[in-house]
């Protein structure tokens, strides 16, 4: 498919029209913070180099999702949802969608997650290239291209005062049009990727996990902001005699996450929980799905009150593994 050149006025005019058909989600200011949120006024949309504070995972995996209601001894399953258009998803956030697709719909799980599938099928994603790295970004060593991400329906790049739109799927074909032009050139090669090629036993007990996790206060902010964290709990709540079961986000950084009813807990220490978070992304998911579940967005690094840094931790592990081989 060819690419189109269009200015911001034309992007916004198109969005105005698309709002009739879709719930449009895009970066907008929420107080003094940029968030992916529903667009009510098209002029609020901010398409630039900034990274929204939170990832857009809520579009496919809401913080609270209705699973069902118990009605007179029967269950009522959740309803269909309106199509959603996510515009302005950064390359790191687009890359995270592939991890979500693997986990919620991949073969490994054997079961397809119907709530995820429902939202994912209703979602059209238009990516937006960055023009530069922000403090804490490390997508360059996590295999994400600054100006392109393949796992979306179309991609916007800022070139001078204009945007170049490249449709990638049928869903993305008619989102934006303009004057036909050449697609933006993609980077040929990435820098060396930050990956761990190791056995679980090599890193599980041999690395200084206590030291890595020293500043952790167990707040779980990293997991809430992470575009690939997907752990959840099921909760029942009763209102006026009707029980609703919902799915809510959970976090491996909390001690109760793995606490057995009988009192045993496989992860009592914060260093064990931090190890789970790092290795889940860098060893366990790669083992099951062939790619690392960290896109280098840097959100966990920027927001951590204890100054923990997953990039530094993994870099250190890698260095220690290489030294051990010598």
């Amino acid at each position, binding site marked *: 498919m060819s690419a189109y050149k269009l200015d911001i006025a034309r992007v916004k005019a198109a969005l105005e029209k698309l709002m009739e058909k879709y719930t449009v989600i895009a970066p907008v200011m929420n107080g003094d913070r940029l968030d992916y949120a529903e667009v009510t006024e098209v002029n609020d949309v901010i398409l630039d180099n900034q990274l929204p504070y939170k990832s857009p995972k809520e579009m496919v995996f809401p913080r609270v999702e209705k699973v*069902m209601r118990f009605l007179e001894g029967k269950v009522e*399953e959740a309803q269909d949802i309106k199509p959603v258009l996510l515009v302005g998803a950064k390359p790191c956030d687009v890359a995270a969608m592939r991890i979500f697709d693997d986990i919620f719909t991949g073969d490994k799980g*054997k079961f397809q997650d119907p709530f995820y599938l429902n939202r994912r099928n209703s979602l059209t994603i238009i990516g937006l290239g960055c023009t530069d790295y922000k403090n804490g970004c490390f997508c360059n060593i996590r295999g994400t291209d600054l100006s392109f991400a393949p796992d979306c329906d179309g991609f916007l790049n800022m070139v001078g005062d204009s945007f170049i739109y490249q449709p990638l799927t049928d869903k993305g074909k008619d989102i934006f049009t303009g004057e036909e032009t050449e697609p933006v050139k993609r980077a040929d090669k990435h820098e060396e990727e930050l990956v761990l090629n190791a056995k679980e036993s090599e890193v599980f007990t041999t690395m200084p996990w206590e030291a890595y996790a020293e500043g952790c206060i167990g707040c779980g902010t990293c997991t809430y902001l992470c575009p690939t964290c997907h*752990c*959840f709990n099921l909760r029942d709540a009763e209102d006026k005699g009707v029980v609703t*079961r919902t799915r809510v986000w959970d976090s491996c950084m909390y001690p109760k996450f793995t606490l057995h009813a009988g009192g045993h807990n496989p992860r009592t220490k914060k260093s064990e929980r931090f190890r789970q978070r790092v290795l889940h992304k860098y*060893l366990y998911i790669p083992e099951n799905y062939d790619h690392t579940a960290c896109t280098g967005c840097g959100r966990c690094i920027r927001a951590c009150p204890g100054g923990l840094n997953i990039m530094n931790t993994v870099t250190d592990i890698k260095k220690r593994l290489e030294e051990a081989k010598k």
Partner: protein
Amino acid sequence: MSMNNPYIPSRATIMQVIQETVSDTQDVKTYKLKLDEPFDYRPGQFVEFSIAGIGECTFGFASSPLIKDYLELTVKRTGYVTENIHMLSEGSTVWIRGPFGNTFPLEKLEGNDLFYVAGGLGLAPLRPMIDYIFDPMYRGKYGKINMLMAARTPGDFIFAYDFDKWAAMPDTTFYQTIDNPMEGWDKLVGFPHTLIDQIPFDMEKTVAVLCGPPVMIKALSNAFVQLGMSPERIYTTLEMRMTCGVGKCGKCNIGHKYVCIDGPVFSMAELGNMPNEY
């Protein structure tokens, strides 16, 4: 469970509540359930069991899959949901989704002797396999059977009403042990891992199947290995806190394996390759 949605439970009715333990705490009961939409399952698998408005818990099947009219789950009162389950009586509505997880490799184990060791509530997930193999249709496919049942005190044994029946089964030797000596107790005393070397069994032909608290599983499997048993011939079923049962919620992993879909049944050889985090 709805066909395309593993999160949606189907309705079940409690037919009978059986008080298992008779010690001071009386904290284990078995629930006999009739399902609106019955399903097939295999020994080793588990379900998510819930009370609407209270929440879900994970339980291994506690009755033989050859029984088609009902299924049993054995529940220890230990947390919020189980406290509420213990308050239910016959006729109550509960919710079930499943079956989930892998199974004991019954076909692969044919021709072997079996050595079951269960500690306390750990007998519940073994009972489907025990009763399945004791069925005259399958008993001939397996060799000699040893059973070592452990509990804290004589009143803490579950399925005690099955013990005479099991002990009388052909080519079966049945042992019971409690943690500490007690007046009137003339059977074994001590933790299972200290007792297995006193029980005669054919090391080359036997497959051990263990379940109990994590600390017991670890000590016991070490003891079997010390005696010369290969870790490939030792099986256990693990419990882990879990929510979904279908490999999504991220709670029950041990390294890259998920207890809910790769387990709950593992050989000690498999567990030996996994991080020691269970």
